[in-house]
């Protein structure tokens, strides 16, 4: 029984780290642009799909497929940012317009995937082979050994980026005070582009590594977006450590539900948990980077 729980916890942690990374991506875009990207989960789908295409149609090795996937994520992000988001900025629309736009993008992307690739899940072979590995007395799929370090690496890299690299610091400045950032010469439009491309590329990368464990198909995007978003809110929108923490909480809840209660009700219970959290703690557990007060 204990090993089962241990296994479930580890699985939950693994998926939770993924949610955390995606939550950070959502937070990056939110910090730079105040936009909530409902289409974030689709990049994960795109990453997996692009890698699958590269491996199965073009017969490429997995490392090349990964590069293709990341490129696909980045390119898609540029197209969406320039073609949709920036176009909308002309009108200076109210905030909910962007919410609808990214929601529309999410619908378009997932349905395009459905039309092009059908309803069947698309699988990738685990990168390190099919032999499970042993960790702390538990037997886990080998892919975990790649996913977990990858996520930790990504989070650390992102934290460093925002602390040390100029563009990263600029984005934090713009998050706290957009006008002030513009006054000191920060190009907020460029920041928006950088934020979208980063988020898209990273999510696609994560998608490739995730596919051998969960497979990918047209519909995974929205569910992932919601869970990642919930993780982001739980940790305080824009707060990276909080996002990872939130992601792990949600991942563990999901995994324990699937294993101990029923895999059918996994989504219902997880989203119920998220809904209750949203209703009870709309401002999240930890502090948000961006003050959301309206100036009177």
């Amino acid at each position, binding site marked *: 029984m204990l090993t089962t729980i241990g296994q479930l916890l580890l699985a939950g942690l693994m998926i939770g780290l993924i949610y955390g990374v995606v939550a950070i991506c959502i937070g990056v875009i939110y910090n730079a642009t105040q936009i909530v990207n409902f289409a974030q989960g689709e990049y994960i789908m795109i990453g997996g799909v692009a890698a699958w295409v590269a491996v199965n149609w073009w017969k490429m090795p997995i490392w090349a497929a990964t590069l293709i996937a990341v490129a696909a994520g980045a390119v898609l992000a540029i197209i969406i940012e320039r073609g949709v988001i920036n176009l909308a900025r002309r009108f200076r629309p109210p905030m909910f317009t962007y919410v*609808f736009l990214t*929601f*529309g*993008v999410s619908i378009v992307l997932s*349905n395009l995937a459905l039309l092009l690739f059908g309803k069947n899940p698309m699988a990738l072979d685990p990168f390190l082979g099919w032999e499970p590995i042993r960790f702390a007395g538990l037997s886990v799929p080998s892919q975990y050994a790649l996913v977990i370090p990858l996520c930790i690496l990504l989070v650390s890299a992102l934290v460093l980026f925002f602390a040390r690299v100029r563009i990263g610091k600029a984005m934090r400045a713009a998050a706290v005070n957009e006008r002030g950032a513009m006054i000191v010469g920060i190009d907020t439009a460029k920041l928006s582009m950088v934020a979208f491309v980063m988020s898209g590329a990273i999510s696609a990368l994560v998608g490739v590594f995730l596919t051998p464990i969960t497979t990918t198909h047209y519909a995974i995007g929205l569910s992932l977006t919601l869970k990642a978003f919930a993780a982001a809110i739980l940790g305080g929108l824009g707060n990276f450590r909080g996002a990872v923490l939130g992601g792990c909480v949600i991942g563990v809840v999901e995994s324990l539900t699937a294993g101990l209660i029923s895999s059918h009700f996994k*989504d219902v219970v997880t989203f119920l948990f*998220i*809904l209750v959290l949203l209703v009870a703690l709309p401002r999240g557990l930890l502090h948000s980077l961006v003050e*959301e007060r309206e100036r009177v």
Partner: protein
Amino acid sequence: MAERKTPATRRGVHVDPLAIAFAGVTVIAIGWFFFPPYWLTVATIMAMYSLPALGLLLLLGYAGQPSFGHAAFFGLGAYASALATTKLGWPSLAGAGLGVAVSAISAFIVGLPLLRVRGHYLAIATLAFAIIVQGLLENLTWLTNGVAGIGRIPSLGDTDVAFVITLGIATVTYVIAAIIDHGRVGTILRALGDDEIAMASCGISPVIVKTGVFVVSAVLASVSGSIYAHYLTYISPESFDVNASVLFVTMMIIGGTGRIWAGLIGAIVIGAIPAMLSDYSSYSALFYGIAIIAVLLFFPNGMLGIGQQIRAGIRSFRRRGAAASAGSKPE
């Protein structure tokens, strides 16, 4: 100095309830005598969707809050009606009433805390709520029959009878809405859309008003779902998935925000499509997604704003022309 024209001075913003009643009765009469069955069906579906369209218009246009999960309330209404009439033998009105009660209570619980904060929280929450409801509908097989769905729901009647009933309900709803719009509630709603902070300074809690709007929009979606159940006589969970919410969102956007009959336009435009495509196939979802993006980018005020936009475009074109000819003169 010209007095700046605002919607309040322009005649015609306050739609006359009598006019709506008259229009509705006219359409019903013309339809009854002259419409071929296909037109009757299309009109019935449009009328059915005009209810949630109105609710979402109120929610977005006045409360400024998007909901992405309205399919959940639609589904709750449909299943409440279906279960009440098939398993409990209740009359259809009672079934619809059950749906209304469930939707209103859940909307209140979800809405009250979340309407205090920014819009995207409600968007996420309603989406989560929609997924939860669909998951429950699919998996609580002892209650809902799961994916097999519920059939043999008492029918609304033949094509023409269903037409009259549905259009009648829609007309009554819009008439009531117009009457309310003329009164104090309409004033409060317009004030809410203008300036929430000022509203608070007048002693009215914006959160309570917004919650009320959300509950009303949920109720409207629920009633529409009940009609849907009796119209199709068979329902299954897959009709109430995220794509269904997308349909509602698209309606809302195409109609634009702010005026009571804008939602009706949205419903008419969008309602025609499912009627013609017969179900939510993937093509229709793709179409809605593209429509959402296109309308938001090119018609930010919705279809009704097109007139404004054309005039504004002509004005700026003329101005540019005048400036160009002035600038071309050598100084």
